[in-house]
């Protein structure tokens, strides 16, 4: 059976395209645009991003707004928690006291002579029967409980029945205890305790010297003055905590951001080289990286500090940076090598090579951009660990040393007064925690946004 197929010339003409066969339903997005949209959808990551920006502003712009020198001591306000009463009263300069009692015993026993204030406390007491060897005087900042912990012994034995306390007085409550000593120098069982609330005072000369009153003003004794403002209080040396936190953030964030940046870059270069060249070179390079990984990290950080000839008390931001870079690159290099190895087998690399692309072009144009997501995520996760390392080293006295503030060294100083003035430890510790938390959550968000394969299952 045969079929006659007749074709006219019309049948061979082009059919006019009537409709668009394929349309893109959505605008085409680049990898980074897509990642940004996904990151914006992640509330936790976005908040973390804002926190990171706020921290950078705190460090970079903060000192411009709050231009207090972090190393200046305010001796009137030592270890002050934030929000204390800053009013002080002007008094005459201190005159040594020799026990001449202005008023005779209106009250029996232990009493305060004159006005007790943060300049001096004058105690007088009636002779205690049996106190042959004189008296011992204690001062405590806590009320005396049944365990009879009298606190700091101000004087071990004094013959007279008066004492003037000038030692490091703060505007707060004190509990003075006088104990008689028997003929063997042993404390008698009975003790007298008196509670004193000290108002804050300052002499006119001191107030003028600190710029609290104008040089041409004629202040009267008893006038109130307001001491310098410390929004977050002061540390044990009377330095402004806010200014120190801002300047400390410079060190902490500098090391926390620059060190990871440098070692991730080195790791990328090393890993890309190993992954691209492959073969024996790759094996040798990676074996070396394995060795460096095996070095006990913190021990070597400390060794490096010794190596740079820095003693325990010297500040070593740059040695710390170098040591961190030298010891931390292998993890990134291994990651990047793995990525490069898998990308190398992709079709588009072969196609590009077929079109005559040279190796540097392949690496720069295809391989590095395609690993950029992984690199960025690594970088974000490296920041908190670098901040931790800095804080840890400064804490054990091997990192940034005083007077340079860093969050770690501030924690180190603050932990000594943890029980009485916890704010000195709390503020830097909170800042470290917030920073680490923000970078961790941002890293999680970036990982979810940038790399579908690494997406966390949460």
């Amino acid at each position, binding site marked *: 059976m045969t079929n006659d197929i007749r074709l006219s010339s019309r049948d061979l003409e082009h059919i006019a395209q009537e409709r668009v066969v394929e349309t893109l339903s959505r605008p085409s997005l680049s990898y980074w645009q897509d990642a940004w949209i996904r990151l914006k959808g992640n509330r936790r990551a976005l908040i973390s991003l804002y926190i990171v920006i706020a921290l950078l502003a705190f460090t970079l712009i903060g000192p411009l707004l709050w231009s207090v020198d972090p190393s200046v001591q305010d001796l009137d306000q030592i270890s002050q928690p934030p929000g204390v009463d800053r009013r002080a009263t002007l008094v005459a300069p201190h005159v040594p006291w020799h026990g001449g009692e202005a008023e005779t015993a209106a009250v029996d026993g232990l009493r305060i002579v004159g006005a007790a204030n943060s300049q001096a406390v004058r105690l007088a007491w009636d002779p205690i029967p049996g106190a042959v060897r004189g008296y011992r005087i204690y001062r405590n900042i806590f009320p005396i409980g049944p365990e009879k912990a009298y606190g700091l012994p101000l004087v071990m034995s004094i013959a007279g029945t008066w004492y003037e306390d000038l030692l490091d007085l703060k505007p707060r409550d004190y509990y003075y205890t006088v104990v008689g000593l028997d003929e063997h120098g042993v404390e008698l069982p009975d003790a007298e305790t008196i509670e004193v609330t000290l108002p804050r005072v300052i002499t006119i000369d001191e107030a003028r010297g600190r710029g609290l009153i104008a040089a041409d003003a004629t202040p009267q004794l008893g006038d109130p003055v307001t001491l310098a403002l410390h929004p977050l209080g002061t540390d044990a040396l009377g330095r402004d905590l806010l200014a120190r936190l801002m300047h400390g953030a410079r060190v902490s964030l500098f090391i926390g951001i620059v060190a990871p940046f440098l070692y991730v870059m080195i790791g990328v270069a090393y890993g890309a080289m190993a992954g691209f060249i492959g073969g024996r070179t790759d094996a040798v390079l990676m074996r070396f990286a*394995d*060795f460096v990984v*095996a*070095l*006990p*990290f*913190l*021990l*070597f950080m*400390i*060794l*490096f*500090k*010794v*190596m740079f*000839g820095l*003693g*325990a008390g010297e500040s070593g931001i740059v040695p710390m940076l170098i040591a961190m870079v030298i010891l931390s690159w292998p993890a990134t290099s291994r990651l990047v090598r793995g990525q490069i190895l898998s990308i190398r087998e992709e079709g588009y690399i072969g196609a590009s090579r077929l079109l005559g692309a040279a190796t540097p072009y392949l690496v720069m144009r295809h391989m590095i951009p395609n690993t950029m997501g992984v690199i960025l995520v690594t970088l974000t996760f490296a920041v*908190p660990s670098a901040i*931790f390392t800095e*804080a*840890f080293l400064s*804490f*054990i*006295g*091997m990192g940034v040393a005083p007077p340079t503030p860093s969050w*770690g060294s501030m*924690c*180190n100083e603050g*932990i000594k007064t*943890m*029980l009485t003035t916890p704010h000195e*430890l709390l503020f830097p*510790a909170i800042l*470290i*925690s*917030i920073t*680490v*938390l923000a970078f*961790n*959550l941002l890293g999680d968000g970036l990982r979810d946004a940038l790399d579908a394969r690494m997406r*966390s*299952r*949460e």
Partner: protein
Amino acid sequence: MFRYTLKRLVQGLITVWFIATATFGAMHLVPGDPLSGEKAASAEIQANLRAKYGLDKPVLQQYFVYLGNIARGDFGISFTQKNREVNDIIREHFPVSATMGLLAILFAGAGGVLWGALTALFRNRLPDVIIMFLVILGISVPSFVMAALGQLSLVKLNAFFGATVLPVGGWGTVRHMLVPSLVLGLGTMAYLTRLMRSSMLEIVNADFIRTAKAKGLPAARIFSKHQLRNASLPVVTVLGPAIAAITTGGFVVELVFAIPGLGRYFVQAVQQLDYTVIMGTTVFYGAFLVFMVIAVDLVYGLIDPRVRLQ
């Protein structure tokens, strides 16, 4: 298996050699020498001391002597403590660190698996939210702050009972060890909880779980026998790095709680520039970590037959 073990051990030895060499190199790049800080030493005494410690020999010869000594397990004599061998120091203080580290690992491992399993079980419900919040805290708060807070809570606890329930510092009895080990393990515990949670969620839809359900096994049995066991495998893999993290974290805990461990000793040695102790401790810790990682890998191969050791 045997060949693999042998290969790993040889690799480990080479790594230890590398650590020893790096330590030696680092210490010899230090400006000055261990004796330059000695007080009141005349030139003759200095020369004699140099001869005694072998510091007058060429660097290469010193290096080989050093390697030979390490191979024999001899780390030399302390520079700052008279007549004290580094080996004695390690022998005396390392067991303390190791005990604390072991307890911390136990805390971290048990806690991590338990909390991780709980969060996965109560996914997106209140227990999950609370535990994950604590986990984030555990990851973000530095170890020294944890240690300080731990000590502070001990003070409060003892004050509350009016007696020393748990000592605030020192070492000796189990009561001394409890809180420092817990503090030391917290960071790792947080990390393990996260890991455990994601690995639990990963296998919750696995085929073998469905099979077990289809067989009609009770839910508790599926959870304990199938889910928990399989999900805790990844926890074993990170135990190696966790041991490293816990040993270094031990420094801080030892400092804060006044525990006579090797970490505290090391920090002290660095502050006093006690060269032999620094070098000995570094090499010792390095070797310890290298072989711990190898041991963990081998154990993992035994637990999980799917992992082929080659």
